[in-house]
C-alpha cells in the first residue's frame, strides 16, 4: 500500500517535468522574450532600449538554456529556463506584472475560491444524485423520459447564460442579493448565495444524466435481481444495493476534482467579482501576464496529479475488492 503511494508520487515527477517543458516551450521558444516585451509594451514602434529594459526588469534578459557568460557553477542556473521554469518546483513563482508577489496573491485568493467552489461541489453532488435516483426509480416511465430531456436541455445552455440569466433574475428583478462583489468573513454568504445556486443549476444537466446512467447500469446487474428475489422492496434495492455500488464511480469521479477546487471557477468568479484564483487567472490571461499564467498552469498540474493520487486512494477506501487485495 505504502509502496503503491510512493510509486504514484514518484510518477508525478516526470509529469510535472513534462508540464514544465511544455510551458517553457510555449512561453519562451515559440516566442522570444522580445516578442513578449513588444506585446506588453503595446505600441508598434518600441525602441530596443525599452524592450531591453522591460526584459531586464523581469529577468528575461538572460539566455534561455545556457549562460556562457555566467561564472562557473551558475552557467545553468543564471538562465531563463532555470529561473522561470525550474524554480516553479520550489513554488517560487516570482512577481506579476504589477510587481505583486504571485505566491502571496495565491495564498490570499485561495479562500474566496474555495468558499465558492466547495459549496457548489457538495450541494451539486447532493442535488444531482437525488435527481438521478429519482429518474432511476421511475425508469422507463414518462417521469424518467422528461427528466432526461430536461437534463439534455440544461446541458445545451452555455454556462454564460446561466450566469447572466441568474444575475439578471435574482438581482435586477427581485433585488434579493447583490449582483457582484465580495466581503470577508460571514458577510461573504450573501455574495455567495447566487453564484452557488447558479453553479449547482448549471451542473444538473450533465451530472444528473451521468449519474442516472451509472445507476441504471448498476440496476441491470445480476446482484440486483438476486436482491429482488429475496423479496426486498424496490427502495431498499435502490438505496442499499445500487446506491452503494454506484457511489464507487461517483465518489472517485468527484475526488479527482477536489484539489482543483483551489483553482476556483473562471466564469463565476469573474462575473460575480469574487477575488479568487479563477478571476485572477482570467485577468492574467486578458492582461497577458505570462508569469501568472505560467504559475497557474503549474499549480493546476500539481493539483490535478494530487487529484489522481487521491482517486487511487479513494478507490482503495470505498471498494472492498481493492481495499483488501
Amino acid at each position, binding site marked *: 500500500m505504502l509502496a503503491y503511494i510512493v510509486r504514484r508520487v514518484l510518477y508525478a515527477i516526470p509529469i510535472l517535468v513534462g508540464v514544465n517543458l511544455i510551458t517553457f516551450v510555449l512561453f519562451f521558444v515559440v516566442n522570444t522574450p522580445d516578442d513578449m516585451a513588444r506585446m506588453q509594451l503595446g505600441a508598434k514602434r518600441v525602441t530596443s532600449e525599452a524592450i531591453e529594459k522591460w526584459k531586464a526588469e523581469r529577468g528575461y534578459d538572460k539566455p534561455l538554456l545556457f549562460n556562457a557568460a555566467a561564472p562557473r557553477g551558475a552557467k545553468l542556473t543564471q538562465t531563463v529556463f532555470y529561473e522561470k521554469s525550474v524554480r516553479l518546483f520550489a513554488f517560487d513563482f516570482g512577481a506579476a506584472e504589477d510587481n505583486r508577489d504571485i505566491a502571496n496573491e495565491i495564498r490570499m485568493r485561495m479562500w474566496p475560491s474555495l468558499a465558492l467552489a466547495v459549496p457548489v*461541489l457538495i450541494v451539486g*453532488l447532493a442535488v444531482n444524485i437525488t435527481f438521478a435516483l429519482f429518474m432511476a426509480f421511475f425508469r422507463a416511465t414518462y417521469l424518467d423520459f422528461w427528466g432526461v430531456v430536461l437534463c439534455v436541455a440544461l446541458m*445545451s*445552455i*452555455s454556462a454564460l447564460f446561466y450566469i447572466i440569466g441568474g444575475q439578471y433574475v435574482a438581482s435586477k428583478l427581485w433585488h434579493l442579493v447583490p449582483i457582484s462583489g465580495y466581503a470577508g468573513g460571514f458577510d461573504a454568504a450573501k455574495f455567495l448565495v447566487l453564484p452557488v445556486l447558479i453553479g449547482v443549476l448549471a451542473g444538473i444537466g450533465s451530472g444528473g444524466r451521468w449519474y442516472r446512467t451509472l445507476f441504471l447500469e448498476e440496476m441491470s446487474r445480476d446482484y440486483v435481481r438476486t436482491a429482488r428475489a429475496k423479496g426486498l422492496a424496490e427502495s431498499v434495492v435502490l438505496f442499499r444495493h445500487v446506491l452503494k455500488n454506484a457511489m464507487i464511480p461517483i465518489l472517485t469521479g468527484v475526488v479527482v476534482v477536489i484539489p482543483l477546487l483551489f483553482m476556483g471557477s*473562471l466564469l463565476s468568479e469573474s462575473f460575480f467579482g469574487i477575488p479568487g484564483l479563477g478571476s485572477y487567472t482570467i485577468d492574467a490571461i486578458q492582461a*497577458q501576464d505570462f508569469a501568472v499564467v505560467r504559475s497557474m498552469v503549474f499549480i493546476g498540474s500539481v493539483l490535478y496529479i494530487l487529484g489522481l493520487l487521491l482517486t487511487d486512494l479513494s478507490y482503495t477506501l470505498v471498494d472492498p475488492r481493492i481495499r483488501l487485495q
Partner: protein
Amino acid sequence: MPFLPFPLFTDVLLWLLMGAIALYVWYCSRKPHLGAPWARVFQSRTAAICAVVFGCYVAIGFADSLHFRVRLQQAAGSEGTPYSPAVLSVLDLALTHLRERRERTYSAPLATRLYAKEQFEIDGKPVRDFPRLRYGGARLQDEAERPRDIAARIGLGLFVAAFAAVLIGLAVKRLRRRRPQIPWSAGGATLLGVLAAALPVLFLSFEYHVFGTDKVGQDVLYQALKSIRISLIIGTLTTLVLLPLGMALGVMAGYFKGWIDDAIQYLYTTLNSIPGVLLIAAAVLMMQVVIDRHAEWFSTAEQRADLRLLVLCAILGLTSWTGLARLLRGEALKLSQLEYIQAAHAFGVADTRILTRHILPNVAHIVIIAMVMDFSGLVLAEAVLSYVGVGVDPATTSFGTMINAARLEMGREPIVWWSLAAAFVFMFVLVLAANLFADAVRDGFDPRVRMGFVPA
C-alpha cells in the same frame, strides 16, 4: 467575371470534410453492416427531428462558406482587374438587406425608433426624443400602423408556410412508401415548423430588425446567422486534429502495450494535467503573437481572422484528444485479447494489418459517437473561450463575441436584452439538436459507450 472566388482555409477544409462525409455515406450505403447502425439511428424520431434542424444550420453555414470578392469598376489607367477588399460570402449576398441597413446604435426588436434619445430638429424646433430609425419601419407613414403591418407580414409568412406544408406532405407520403421504417412525418413536421418560424421572420426582416440592432447599429439577426458558420467550424474542424491523434495514439497504446503504452499514457496524463482553459489560453496567446508578427502573410482582414480561427481549432484539437485516446486505448486493449485477433496472430498477420483490418474497423463506432458527442461541447467552449478573450478574432462575429458584447450592456436601463436573446435561441437550438442527435447515434451504434464526464 464579376467576382473572384476567394476561398478561405476554413472554407476549403469544411468542404473537404463535407466531401469526406459524402464519401462515407456512399460507402456505408454499399456495406450493409456499416449502414445498419445508421438505419437504426434514423429510425428514432428524435434523430429525424434533430437531423432536419441540424441540416438547416448546416445549409446556412455552408452558404456562408463560399467566399468571393466583387469586381470594382476599372479605374482609369490602372492595370489588372481590381477587386473589392471586402470578402463576402453567398450568405452575405442573400442577406444584403440585413447587412447594409445599419442604424446608428441600439434599437429594440421590431422597433421603429432608436433606443437612445437624441437631440434633433422637427420643423426647425429642437426636440429631445427617440429618433425614427433609418431603415426599421421607415416605410410606415404612421407608426400606429406598425402592429397591423407586423401582423400582415407574419400572416404572409404563415401563408407561404402553409403552401409549403402541402408540398412537404406530398413528399413525406412518397418517401414513406419507399422507406417506411424512417419517421418521415416527424422530419417533415420539423421542417414545416422551421419554415413556419423562418418565413415570417424573413418577411419581417425586409422592413424591420427582427432581433433589433447592436451598439453600432448592425442587425442582430444577421450577426446570429453569421455566427452559425463559426460554431460549425469549431465543432467540426477541431475533430480533424482530434480524431487522427486520438485514434492513432489510443489504438497503438492499447494494442502494442509495453513501453509504447507507457509513453502515450505519459503524454496524455501530462497534457491532461494542465488545466484546459489555461493550456488553450497559453497556446492561443502565443499563436496570437506569431500572427501579429507576420502581418505580411495576409492580404485581407478576413484571412487573418480565418487563420486565427483555424489555429483555435487546431489548439482545441491538440488539447482535447486525450479523452478519445483513453477510450480507444481501453477498447483496443479489450479487442487485442479477443480470439479473432489471436487467430490473426496464429496466421502470422503483420501488426499494421491487424491494426487496420481488425482493430480500427471495430472501434470505428466509438470514433463516430465521440465525434458527434464532442460537437456540442466544442460549440459551448467557443462561447466561453471568446469570453475569456482567447477565442475567435474579436472582429469575427460569433456567439461568444455576441454574448461578450451584450454582457457589457447588462447594466443599462431599460435593459438591452435582444443580442443575448438571439445568441441564446440560436445556440440553444443548435446545441440541443446536436446533443439529442448524439444520443440517438450512441443508442444506434453502441449504447454502452460512455463518454467521460467531469463533475462541476
